């Protein structure tokens, strides 16, 4: 290369380099990467037990009277400080109206997520979030609690995708959507047809729809009809809520329901893989007896279980979707409902007998079978989804019910019945071809073998009880790791026990529930209980257990001025340096920022009766640097997570001085993070005006 050419080349290189240096942003990620590297290096090496270590363990075991299985359970569940759980449970919070986020195997409560009830720590309903809570009001009646039942993680291809969580409220027939990026409730949908429900929520394999099955039949759409007209005027239902993943919301305009006979529909599950396109839902009380109605001397609950069988509902949701799309639904209380007649005519709905008063209906991971647990029958009944499809195609009916719904011949669709014990309720699966069913009356978890293509995964005979592990006490639901997805992990099972009796120190007449961790990692008859976790809130029902690494929660909001409700930057959010108070007649707008350890502005003067709009942005960008913002006497408490922007409206009340302060211990100057809301009298009193003048 000639010197002249090389000089030209270098000059070009320099020009490009310098030009690039002005558009180039140094990677902020650099710091994060080096941090991660350091964290990795710090990982501990496992202990090698020598004689001294054994002696130390022996001493602890002797002092604390621990058995070898206790030591083993402790070692399997203990997480050293700073290490994280492998799985996360999202559990219903029962009447607390919340969701619990629990780590597995440590069984540590990580946080609660406020859903149907106001919750001050999260600033939910005080008053931020009030507009979400109000979405769930029933015909003008404010509802500020929920009986949360069944959480459902959003799915892609039948796998949990870790993006959203849905949960139903039985008491008020509502459904909530939680965004798992910030673990906050974004939407509550009130069912326009029914007062209460039960089968919510369950999702179709790609979360196209969220299923909300009803329970206690009423006239649809909240209208009145005498209980004496039960058969003609009362109806069951199942609602298919369309989920708009991009918006992160249920799209009520694309949702619809199916009218069902007034049986008490119970739990539902969506078919997957082999049975994708179907929905299964069971029922009880097909006798259609009603409260107050007696058969001789038999009371309602006994009357409700007179017949030997109830009905498993089989719904073709893809056909239902097509019927809805071509206008086959009629509006009830403004909501589209496909009538029983249309559903039957279009081949959307059929029934098949199931042992009386069942509870769980759980599709196997490959979609081949549906397991219905007997509750009042010691068996689980397994239906073949292939046989169901064949029976529908060849119209193998044993008759129709009184509402004209075809009933598939039981023997044509039933695959097996497996006797497990007393009170079978719910079933989950693992990766070894086993199913796990909770036995309420036996107070045990049953492990049993699946057949079909699962038979090769285990060494036992298919369709047989393998072992039962007693749990304490009265188990309701159970959950295994990803146990209702298309690929369960096995490993852990959590028994969700209704009673704890003697398991914990008595807490008065109201006792906690007991979540028990069960080790299901070894095949065969080994299935020990590892850990008891008291749940001192509500009455949890179902839970789902997801691999922790599928969740990608934000640790701070993506940008300063973030509106969690829209999950985007609020263009009107207050920016640093733009803090001020603007008076416009009786309208006052406060533009405030919060950063350790200061609210700016920290003195806000208004006049009695002013309409106040208070905008506040957290300027923090550091993990865990959350500020609270409360105004005493005003029922106001916000949680301002790093970057979050909130706007609240309220009216200035009685004249006086109202301190506001940060309710999180944010920094060494937390107590000093305060200000005054000064409300001046409307008709200025000479003395007071003088006193507030500085």
């Amino acid at each position, binding site marked *: 290369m000639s*010197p002249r050419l*090389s*000089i030209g080349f*270098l*000059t070009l*290189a*320099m020009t490009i*380099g*310098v030009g*690039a*240096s*002005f558009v*180039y942003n*140094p*990677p*902020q990620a*650099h*710091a994060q990467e*080096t*941090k991660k590297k*350091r*964290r990795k290096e710090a990982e501990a090496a496992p202990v090698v037990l020598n004689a001294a270590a054994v002696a130390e363990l022996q001493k602890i075991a002797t002092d604390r009277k621990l058995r070898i299985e206790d030591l083993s359970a402790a070692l399997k569940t203990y997480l050293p400080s*700073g290490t994280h759980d492998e799985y996360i449970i999202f559990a219903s919070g029962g009447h607390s109206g919340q969701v619990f986020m629990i780590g597995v195997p440590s069984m540590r409560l990580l946080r609660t997520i406020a859903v149907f009830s106001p919750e001050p720590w999260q600033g939910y309903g005080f008053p931020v979030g009030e507009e979400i809570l109000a979405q769930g009001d029933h015909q003008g009646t404010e509802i500020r609690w929920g009986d949360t039942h069944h959480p459902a993680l959003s799915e892609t291809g039948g796998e949990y995708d870790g993006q959203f969580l849905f949960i139903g409220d039985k008491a008020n027939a509502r459904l909530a959507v939680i965004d798992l990026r910030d673990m906050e409730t974004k939407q509550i949908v009130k069912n326009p047809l029914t007062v209460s429900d039960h089968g919510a929520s369950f999702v179709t394999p790609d979360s196209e729809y969220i299923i909300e099955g009803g329970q206690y039949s009423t006239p649809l759409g909240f209208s009145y009809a005498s209980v004496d007209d039960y058969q003609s005027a009362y109806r069951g239902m199942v609602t298919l809520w369309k989920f708009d993943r991009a918006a992160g919301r249920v799209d009520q305009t694309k949702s619809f329901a199916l009218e069902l006979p007034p049986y008490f529909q119970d739990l539902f599950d969506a078919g997957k893989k082999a049975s994708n396109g179907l929905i299964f839902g069971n029922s009880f009380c097909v006798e259609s007896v009603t409260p107050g109605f007696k058969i001789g001397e038999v009371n309602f609950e006994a009357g409700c279980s007179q017949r030997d069988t109830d009905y498993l509902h089989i719904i073709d949701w893809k056909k239902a979707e097509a019927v809805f799309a071509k206008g086959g639904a009629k509006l009830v209380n403004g909501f589209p409902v496909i009538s029983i007649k249309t559903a039957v005519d279009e081949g959307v709905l059929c029934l098949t007998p199931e042992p009386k008063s069942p509870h769980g209906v759980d599709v196997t991971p490959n979609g081949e079978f549906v397991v219905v647990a007997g509750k009042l029958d010691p068996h689980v009944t397994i239906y073949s989804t292939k046989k169901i499809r064949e029976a529908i195609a060849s119209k193998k009916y044993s008759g129709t019910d009184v509402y004209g719904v075809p009933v598939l011949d039981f023997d044509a669709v039933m695959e097996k019945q497996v006797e497990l014990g007393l009170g079978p309720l719910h079933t989950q699966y693992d990766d070894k071809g086993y199913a796990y069913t909770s036995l309420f009356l036996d107070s045990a978890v049953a492990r049993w073998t699946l057949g079909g293509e699962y038979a090769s995964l285990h060494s036992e005979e298919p369709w047989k009880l393998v072992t039962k592990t007693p749990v304490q006490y009265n188990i309701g639901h159970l959950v295994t790791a990803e146990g209702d997805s298309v690929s369960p992990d096995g490993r852990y099972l959590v028994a969700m026990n209704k009673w704890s009796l003697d398991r914990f120190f008595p807490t008065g007449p109201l006792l906690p529930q007991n979540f028990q961790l069960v080790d299901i990692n070894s095949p065969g008859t080994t299935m020990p209980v590892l850990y008891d976790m008291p749940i001192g809130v509500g009455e949890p029902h179902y839970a789902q257990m997801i691999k922790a690494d599928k969740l990608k929660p934000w640790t701070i909001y993506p940008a300063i001025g973030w509106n969690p409700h829209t999950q985007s930057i609020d263009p009107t959010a207050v920016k640093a340096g733009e803090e001020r108070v603007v008076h416009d007649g009786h309208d006052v707008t406060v533009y405030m920022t919060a*950063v*350790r*350890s200061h609210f700016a502005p920290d003195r806000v003067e208004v006049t009695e009766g002013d309409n106040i709009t208070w905008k506040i942005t957290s300027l*923090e*960008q*550091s993990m865990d640097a959350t500020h609270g913002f409360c105004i005493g006497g005003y029922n106001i408490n916000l949680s301002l997570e790093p970057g979050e922007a909130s706007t609240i409206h309220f009216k200035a009340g009685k004249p006086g001085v109202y301190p506001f302060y940060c309710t999180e211990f944010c*920094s*060494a*100057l937390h107590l*000093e993070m305060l200000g005054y809301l000064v409300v001046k009298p409307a008709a200025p009193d000479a003395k007071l005006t003088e006193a507030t003048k500085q």
Partner: protein
Amino acid sequence: MSRSTLLSLLGPRVSDDELLARGFRYLAPTVTLAIARVLLVISIFFPYWSMLLEAPQYPDGLEVIAYVNTLAGDVQEVDGLNHYIGMRPLGEAASFERASSVWMIVAMFLLIEGAASVRSKWAVLLVLPALLFPLGFIVDLQFWLYHFGQNLDPHAPLSASVKPFTAPAIGIGEIGQFRTIARLETGWWLAAGSSVITIVGLLLHRRAYKPLHDLAARRTTTGVA
């Protein structure tokens, strides 16, 4: 400017015969100084310096990363903490240096280019800024660390427990509950490498052109033109 002055600045011409005979001797300094120049420009894109701050409530530490023209890392958080001890925001430090550094590097680039083009001892003067740049960076940095650490707002909340201090530009320091670990980063090492290669280039330059100079000088004194 007289022709002789210009000649003494630029140095004697290299005859075509000489170039043909010993091309590598004359190419070597040009190429070496070219490498030095390129390294200097590349260094703009790499961090020159970083300070890691370790404290109990920051298990992953906080990091401030200095490029010649900007700051990156946990600057906002560090600024937030600094306001408790009355230190001014980091963005106010060395603002002239950060604004002008790219142009200074452009200038140094052109000066090295000039050094490669002249055939006289003045080449040393031309590369001097680039040669001293890495050292200058450290001196300037230490000045700012001193200036910021010593001039704390006496009315700051924690002024009772954190007295004025000077954090070391390289190595370990201690401020409050923080341990600071400052070290030079890739960009600085690229600049330092550029300096070393520049020195090598100068030696090669001298080897190539000194004999021509000496020859010209001898011819002048002996009157042989």
